[in-house]
């Protein structure tokens, strides 16, 4: 499973694309929990959303290894 990182998420993970091998989080909520455990700095920033296949995803959305997954920190375009 690959997870794209942008903005401050890219700084926290020191990567633009995380790779998770083995036991992958089964849904969006598990992924958020996994990220906060692995990178505690996520606890100190505003809440990030998760996008699955380029759509914002609720906590209950299931994740599959082939999905395009991204961490979406608070946006600030414009």
């Amino acid at each position, binding site marked *: 499973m690959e997870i794209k990182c942008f903005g*401050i998420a890219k700084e926290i993970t020191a990567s633009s694309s995380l790779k998770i091998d083995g036991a992958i989080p089964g849904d969006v909520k598990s992924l958020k929990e996994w990220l906060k455990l692995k990178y505690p700095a996520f606890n100190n920033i*505003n809440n990030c959303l998760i996008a699955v296949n380029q759509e914002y995803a609720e906590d209950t959305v299931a994740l599959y290894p082939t999905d395009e997954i991204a961490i979406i920190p608070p*946006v*600030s375009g414009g």
Partner: protein
Amino acid sequence: MKSNKTDIQILSTPLSLDDCYNFILDESCGGLCLFVGTVRNHNKGKTVTHLDFEAYEGMALKELAKIAATAINEYGVKHIAIHHRQGAVGLTEKAVIIAVSSVHRKAAFEACEFAIAALKERVPIWKKEFLLDGSHWVNARP
């Protein structure tokens, strides 16, 4: 992403008002509204030297297309162009242009306001602000 009604682009080069203006021109439209967001030299009391925009390009284009569709279907505009910069952008440079055309002005003003507000709320683009004494991602921290 370009159709005869929408022109949506994320660009690493300076944005062109002429390109947006020419795209929305329509013989049936008497009201054109263009919003331009530029880089200003201060924010929250600090001096800003420049900005750097990062985009999740594929998703950002999709979200911008949804905004454009709403502007056309719900606000009744005929054409909409949304151009957003990515990469480093200097003071007074254009960070974003939203241009809409409609038969009468009211729909154009309202759709333009809706589009920039929606862009700021949900399009995955991030702004890093460079100050005299450091830099930070805007909105990232409480």
